[in-house]
Each structure stands twice: as C-alpha cells, then as structure tokens.
C-alpha cells in the first residue's frame, strides 16, 4: 500500500493502482472515456487529466499513471476543468451531435460529460465526419461518425473476446475503426464492443428505436441459455423485455455476455409464445381453458399411474423440478429423467463414481488462476462462450498454458502458444487413459494417489494404454501424448475442462472417469486454479442433477417404452426430443405411439405439435426460483415482467395437478427453496438472502476413488466420413431458435467439411449436400472450413426445421457419405 493525497484527502491505495483506481477506491470520481476496468490502460482521450504536484503541476492522465508514495494529486482545479472542456470541444468538433435520434442518448458518456462540463459552445469549427454507416449485419450498427476513437471496441474484441474483428485503420487525421479489408463487420456477434462503446457508434440493431434508455426498468436476472450462469440486466418497458443492458459490475464475468445472452432474449416476448392451453379435439389442437386442460391431464395421470413417464428440460428452476418430482410421485410414476439421460451421465455416473459427488470439484473462477488448462474439444468455446472468455484472458494476460485435445481445431487453437492435438473422432478416452499411463510410468504420480481406492486396479488396467499402443489408432504420436502428460503433471495448478450435452454423446461417464483419474493421479484436486470442471449444457443442468430429477429406466428407454406400449402417458416439460434427442424416426414413432402426450412449453415446438394437451408456460423472465450453474453457483431469479397471456409457470401447473390428484400442493417457490436448503447436500443453509446478487456456491464434498473407464473402440468405416455433432456458437439447445439474434446470424443447420474433402468432391460453399448415414438421409448446406481435419465433418444440432437427428442415431461418431 502507498500513501497519497487526493484533493487534500489522505488516502491509501495498492502499489499497483493507477491514480484513477486509487481515486475510485477512495470515492473520488475522475471522468473517463477511453478507460475500462476490464481492459489494459490505454490513455487515448485525455478526459481523466489530473494535476500532480511532484510533476510540477503538469496535467497527466489518471488512467495510465501509477501511484507513488507521497503523491499529491488534484482532480478538478480550474485548469483541469478547462482542459477537460477543451477535450470535449475537440471531440464534439467532428461529431454529428445527433442525440435526438441516437439510441445511446441518456446512456452516453460523451453526452453526459458534455452536460456535466457545460460545453455549450465550441471555439473551433471543422467538417463533420462523412463515414458510411455499416448496416450490413442484422445485429450491430456501426456509425463511425459518432466515434470518439477511444479504441475500447477494438481492445475488448482483442483482449477478452480474442476475435480481433476491429482496429484503427488509416491512422492519422482520417483514423476510423474498421474491419478486415474495410468491409462489413462479420464476427461472432457477442456484442462486447457494443457494450463498452461510450457513444452511439456501435448499437444493438434489434433494439433500435424501441425505447429511450431512461424509460427502461432495469431488472437483474440470470441468462436462460447455457450452464455458465451469466448474470443479465433486462431492459423492460410496458411488460416487454426490449433489450439486455450492460453492467460492468455484474457477475464474475463483469457484464460480458455471448451472442445468445445478449441478443437472444426475444423469445421472452415473441409473438409465437403460446398464450392459452391447447387440447386435441377431433385430431386438432384447439384452444381450451386451464380447468379443462388440467382436468384432462390429472385424469390421465390418475389412470395411467405407473405407466406414466416424464422428461423435463434442464431449464426449469430447481423448485419446479422438485415439485415436478412430487407430482410424478403422487401420480405413481417412477420413470423420469432430463437431458436425454446421457447428457448428465458424466456427472450422475462418472463423477458420482470418481468423486463421490455428482458435481465438478472446480469452478469457473479457477480458470484464471490456473497454470495450465487442458480443454477437451475446442467446442468448449462454442458451448460456453463466456467460459471461453475466461480462457482467453487466462492465456493472454496470465500466461496460462493451454493444451487442447480435440477432434477438430477451433477458436481456442488460435490463442497465443495454444497447443492443439487433433485426434481421430471418438478416441479421447483412450488418449486420456494413455496420459494417465505415462504419469504412472514416469513416476509423476502425486503422493496422495496411491492411497485412494482403486489405485492398484487402475494401474493394472491402464497397462494396455501405452502411448505407443494408443497412438496407433488415435492420430497422435506417442511423443505428443508423452509431452502432454508431462506438461500436465508438472504444472503446479492444472485444470481440465470438458463440455457435455445432448450433442456430445461421446462425453460420457467413462470420459468423466478418465479425466478424474488423470487429475487424481497427478494430484491436481483441491488446489485453487486446479481440478476438473465439467461444462454442462443448459442453465440448470447441474440443478436438475442436484434435485435428483432422475429415476427409473432413463430417458432412452422411456422413448423405447413409448414405442413398445409399456409407457402410455408421457409428460414432457419443455423437452423437445423430436429435435434434440438422437434418431428422429425412433422418437417420432414413440410419440406417435404413446396414448397420451402432454407437453408444457412456451412454443408450439415440433414436439408440442404432436401433443394431446399443450400447457403454455412462462419464461425465466416471468418467474421466481433458483438456477444452479455448471459450477454449482446457485442463483436467484425474480420476475422481470408479468406472465405473457394466460401462461403459467411450471411451478403453478405442477402444483395445481398435485392438488387435483389429491396431494398437498407446495406453497411458494421460496418455501420449496427452503425445503431444498434443508435437504439437498451442499445447499444446506442457503436462503434467498444468502444467495444475494452474486449467487452462492454449493460446496462439493469429495470422496475420490479410481474408476476404470471403458474406452469404446471406434470402428472405422472405410470410404466414409466421420460425422461429429455439437453446438454452434450462436445456439444453445433448441430454445435459441426463438431468439431472433441467434437466428439472424445462424438461421439453419450446415455440415462443416475440410477444404481437402470439399476439393476432392468438388463441393463449394453453400452447396446443398445429401448427407446419408445408416440411419437415414437429409440435406444440409456445405460449409467449408480450414479447421476440420480431412475425413471429419461437423454438424450442429438445434434446428427443428431440418434436425440433424435424421442421420444421427446417438453414436459419438456417425459414418456418413456426402453427395451433391
């Protein structure tokens, strides 16, 4: 700590602080325009000028100057005020000053500072800028006429997003922010640049002319898409969520969001929302009253009893899942599941065996504290983009080493010094076993490991996984495996990350066991910055596991049961298996066959359209409850708007049905959460108050053991291509199809193929290809990319209009042919 004087006040500040930070810490505001707490100091705008006595009263920028012992600083002398006024005059010189039509008005730093410093005239005159406005993409408008050249957009896109879409071009008197070859912006559309732009140069197009900033109510919430659990601020007016607002102090991520979180909110107030219950009459779904619909469902549940089954989406709140379970138990139903079953197996079977807990030992906060990150599949960036930002920052700012084991390269591979090992699809478990084998052979085993249960058996079983043996089939060399193993074992703090989800059927319990073995052998658990983090797919995937929403035969066999008639009534709460479960024909046949299908949904999805009763439910923005993020951060959400139409929360629906079945309906979400905090391990003692705005981690108690994973052999079908499924960056599950932003930039499925394969078959970009597998065939547009290895193709799931499960039957690798 150093002592200094700011505006005659004696204060202290950390040695590493800048004058700006020291002042802020002590409650003294210095105006800034180009500075951002998340970015490296830049010093471009001179708004933050202050006087330092030791520097002979010279005016220096507070945002770039470090404090020193005894510094005497004045932040607003008449000279300083004069200087700042001049800065503003110069900035306003070429600026159009079109605040009346600028969406940023009211939230604009330039406008606010001009007002604060009363700059009502300009001593200078010059021409205004004449830049063409970039309206070429549907999400971000770029009006460089309003730009103050603070560089924040270019810096955030480089320093945090690591995309590098923007920079200063034509530096000099004509400087502007431009894109590659001065063309239109075409990037990952995370909107980070929009969020930090201090003026109206970068605007969210979907929100343009929708509402004045000051007329919006700001409601804190949690993103309803992936398991990262980012915090959101919803901008609400007239009971509509009109936009997401940036708050640099929100969440572990400091307000950073991905394209889905920032631009995918439109499903909340979509015209396509169901507003009334639907009941099938004479073969057609017709609008009905709640009483009629619920009576019908209750009567069916009573009749069907044990031949009922249920599947829920992992987007329901914890409280809803608990009440759903209660409903099913009341109805005598013993078969229910979520996430297609296999998408939670890494936790419920894998970690449950290896760690004695169905949860990850590490958190997202460990990423930036780690020395080495081992990421399984570059897809981790696409599935959890804000986790991806954490990886970017760890690698770029902290010098964390990044090793990637993957079946294709990807964005993470481009990070400085990232080492990407591209293996043949489906061989990851064998490779991880082999890493463990090297650690054993090279005596890199941590002292704590030998005492753990299963050690001797593991040692024996791993004998077959020498790098030489594994390298023969996995596409990596034995040397690469050995080098990776020793880098991992010798890193002081090493963290393994891997995504799971419905599009990643290869990321199984066995993968989780393999990863856990590796971490346990090398002694990486229990240290900050080390361990294992499984990235689960949906916003409440971990919650669904913690609430134990899983009993009986499992999702796969529930579908089979519908097909073979042993299950007569199926309750789908928000699940859309027709699109998101493997094998479209099989799911369709099952849903056709089942006698009674009830679906609670926000939209008339492909699945809901087959139902006998559809119950309209509300979105996360309309309800109260808790979500548990992938790292067991439990967060509280409150309604931001009233329920749309006649929709009800799943909580209310399940409660009403319990009452109709003669059970005791639960009280409120708060009372159910109180129950959860009394009974669910790790949640003990939690309350809405203790969750606060940041949420609270449910601690994970570990009882580690070695569990030998089965490494499945992949049978290669010669002459065919290996299709791997996954997530597209712009989507999460099937919900994002109703978010306009994601659909603007990624409206349909595609098949991504290597340049070599495309050249060999003379496929061109956007050619409509017939994709054929043993399971069926479909048409998808070709997308040719440099990241795919020869012989491997990638297709995202998500898309109901043309779902990839027409050719994909749930295998980690599907062998296909492509034809024009």
């Amino acid at each position, binding site marked *: 700590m150093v002592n200094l004087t700011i505006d005659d006040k004696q204060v202290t500040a950390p040695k590493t602080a800048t004058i700006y930070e020291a002042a802020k810490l002590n409650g003294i505001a210095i105006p800034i325009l180009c500075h951002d707490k998340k970015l490296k100091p830049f010093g471009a705008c001179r708004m933050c000028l202050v006087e330092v006595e030791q520097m002979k009263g010279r005016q220096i920028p507070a945002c770039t100057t470090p404090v020193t012992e005894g510094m005497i600083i004045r932040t607003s002398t008449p000279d300083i005020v004069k200087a700042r006024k001049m800065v503003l005059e110069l900035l306003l010189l070429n600026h159009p000053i079109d605040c009346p039509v600028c969406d940023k008005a009211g939230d604009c730093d330039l406008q606010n500072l001009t007002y604060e410093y009363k700059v009502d005239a300009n001593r200078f005159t010059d021409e205004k800028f004449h830049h063409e406005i970039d309206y070429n993409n549907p999400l971000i408008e770029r009006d460089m006429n309003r730009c103050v050249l603070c560089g924040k957009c270019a810096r955030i896109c480089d320093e945090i997003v690591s995309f*590098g*879409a*923007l*920079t*200063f*071009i*034509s*530096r*000099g008197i004509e400087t502007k922010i*431009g*894109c*590659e*070859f*001065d063309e239109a912006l075409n990037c990952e559309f995370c909107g980070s640049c929009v969020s930090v732009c201090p003026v109206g140069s970068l605007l969210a197009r979907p929100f343009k002319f929708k509402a004045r900033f000051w007329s919006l109510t700001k409601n804190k919430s949690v993103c309803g898409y992936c398991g990262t659990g980012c915090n959101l601020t919803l901008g609400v007016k007239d009971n509509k969520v009109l936009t997401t607002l940036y708050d640099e102090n929100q969440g572990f991520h400091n307000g950073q969001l991905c394209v889905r979180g920032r631009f995918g909110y439109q499903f909340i107030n979509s015209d396509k929302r169901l507003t009334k219950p639907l009941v099938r009459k004479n073969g057609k779904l017709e609008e009905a009253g709640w009483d009629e619909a619920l009576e019908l469902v209750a009567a069916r549940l009573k009749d069907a009893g044990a031949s009922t089954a249920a599947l829920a989406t992992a987007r329901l709140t914890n409280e809803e899942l608990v009440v759903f379970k209660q409903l099913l138990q009341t109805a005598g139903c013993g078969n229910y599941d979520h996430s297609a079953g296999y998408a939670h197996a890494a936790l419920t079977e894998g970690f449950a065996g290896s760690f004695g807990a169905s949860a990850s030992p590490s958190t997202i906060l460990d990423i930036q504290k780690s020395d080495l990150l081992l990421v399984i599949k570059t897809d981790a960036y696409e599935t959890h983009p804000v986790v991806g930002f954490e990886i970017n920052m760890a690698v770029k700012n902290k010098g964390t080493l990044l090793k990637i084991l993957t079946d294709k390269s990807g964005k993470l591979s481009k990070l400085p010094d990232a080492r990407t090992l591209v293996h043949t699809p489906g061989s990851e478990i064998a490779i991880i076993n082999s890493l463990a084998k090297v650690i054993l052979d090279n005596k890199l085993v941590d002292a704590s490991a030998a005492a753990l249960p299963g050690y001797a058996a593991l040692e024996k079983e791993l004998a077959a996984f020498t790098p030489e043996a594994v390298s023969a089939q996995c596409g990596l060399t034995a040397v690469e495996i050995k080098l990776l193993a020793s880098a991992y074992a010798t890193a002081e703090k090493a963290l393994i990350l891997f995504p799971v989800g419905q599009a990643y059927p290869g990321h199984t319990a066995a993968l989780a066991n393999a990863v856990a073995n590796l971490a346990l052998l090398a002694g990486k658990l229990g240290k900050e910055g080390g361990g294992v983090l499984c990235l689960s797919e949906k916003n409440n995937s971990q919650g669904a596991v913690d609430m134990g929403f899983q009993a009986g035969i499992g999702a796969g066999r529930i579908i089979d049961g519908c097909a073979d008639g042993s299950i007569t009534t199926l309750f789908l709460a928000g699940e859309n298996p027709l699109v998101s479960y493997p094998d479209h024909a099989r799911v369709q046949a099952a849903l056709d066959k089942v006698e009674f299908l009830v679906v609670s949904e926000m939209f008339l999805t492909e699945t809901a359209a087959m139902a006998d009763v559809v119950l309209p439910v509300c979105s996360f923005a309309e309800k109260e409850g808790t979500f548990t993020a992938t790292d067991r951060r439990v967060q509280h959400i409150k309604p931001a708007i009233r329920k749309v139409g006649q929709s009800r929360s799943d909580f209310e629906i399940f409660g009403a049905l319990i009452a109709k079945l003669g059970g005791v309906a639960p009280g409120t979400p708060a009372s159910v959460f109180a129950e959860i905090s009394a009974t669910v391990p790790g949640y003990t003692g939690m309350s809405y108050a203790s969750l606060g705005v940041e949420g609270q981690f449910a601690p994970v108690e570990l009882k580690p053991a070695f569990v030998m994973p089965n490494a499945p052999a992949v049978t290669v079908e010669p002459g065919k291509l290996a299709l791997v499924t996954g997530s597209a960056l712009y989507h999460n599950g099937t919900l994002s199809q109703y978010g306009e932003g994601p659909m603007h930039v990624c409206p349909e499925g595609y098949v991504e193929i290597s340049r070599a394969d495309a050249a060999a078959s003379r496929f061109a970009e956007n050619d409509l290809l017939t994709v054929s597998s043993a399971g069926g065939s479909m048409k998808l547009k070709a997308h040719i990319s440099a990241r795919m290895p020869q012989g491997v193709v990638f297709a995202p799931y998500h898309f109901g209009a043309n779902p990839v499960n027409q050719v994909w039957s749930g295998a980690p690798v599907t062998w296909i042919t492509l034809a024009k």
Partner: protein
Amino acid sequence: MIPEHMKQELVKRVSGAITNREAAVDVMKELQRHYGWLSDEAVQEAADVLGLSPLQVEELATFYEMIYRRPVGRHVIHVCDSVSCWSMGGESLLQQLERVLEVNVGATTADGIFTLLPCCCLGNCGKAPAVMVGERLYGPVTPEGAEAFIKGLIESSA
C-alpha cells in the same frame, strides 16, 4: 500469389526480426514492389508470413502513406503539403502538377504512368517545395518548373 522463393526470403527476414511486427513494413514494401501496390491478396500473404491477422496488417498498411492499398501508376509522385513546403508554394505546385498531368490529386493518369499524391513532411524542408518519386527526393520544385520536372521524369524513365 508471390513466388515460393520470395516467400521463403520473407519468412527468413521475419524470423531474423526480434518481433514479427517490426518486420511488417519490410514485408509490405517487398510485396508492394512485387505487385505494384498492396492488394488484398498481398495483405493476406503478408499476414501469413508475419503470423498476424489480415486486420493487423491492414492497421499498419493504412498508417503508412507510402504503402498503397489501391492500385497506383508506375511512378507515384508525392508532393509535400506540410508547412515549410506550403509556405514556399507547395500548394501551387500541386495544382500545377494536376494541370500538367491532367489528373486530380489522388488519381492516376490515363496511361497508368503517374499517380499524384500529397504527403507529409519529407524531411527535405531546406529544399522546399519538396517532391518524392519512388525513393528519390527532389527539391526545390517550383510551380513554374512543374512541366519541366515531369518531362524530366518521363525522359529519365524512358
């Protein structure tokens, strides 16, 4: 595409530099010598050789006024418009050259031989108004001498 041997040569130069970025000007100039200007293709090639993104090359390319991001004539005439030259008649010289060459400043003559550009101080203030063609400095070039100056250029390159 640049020939392989040229690419190898550039790669060698980059590897000899302490940071890749400091070799950027050198690489851009070589590519410009090859193509006559720094085309989009050349920016991409420079990026490949330098291990930078095309956008990072663009940022540098658009900073230097002697790197041309648009096609130029065989000879680029840079006429200084900074203050010393201005006070010695640089502005009239530029206008005079426009008339002699029959092009507007910023453009290339119909025969593709000359491009006329204004530029910043050439460090030749003592001989203002200063002009630079290729890598050669001239000055003083008076407005009255503009026609003769161009003739001289044509003759010496013929």
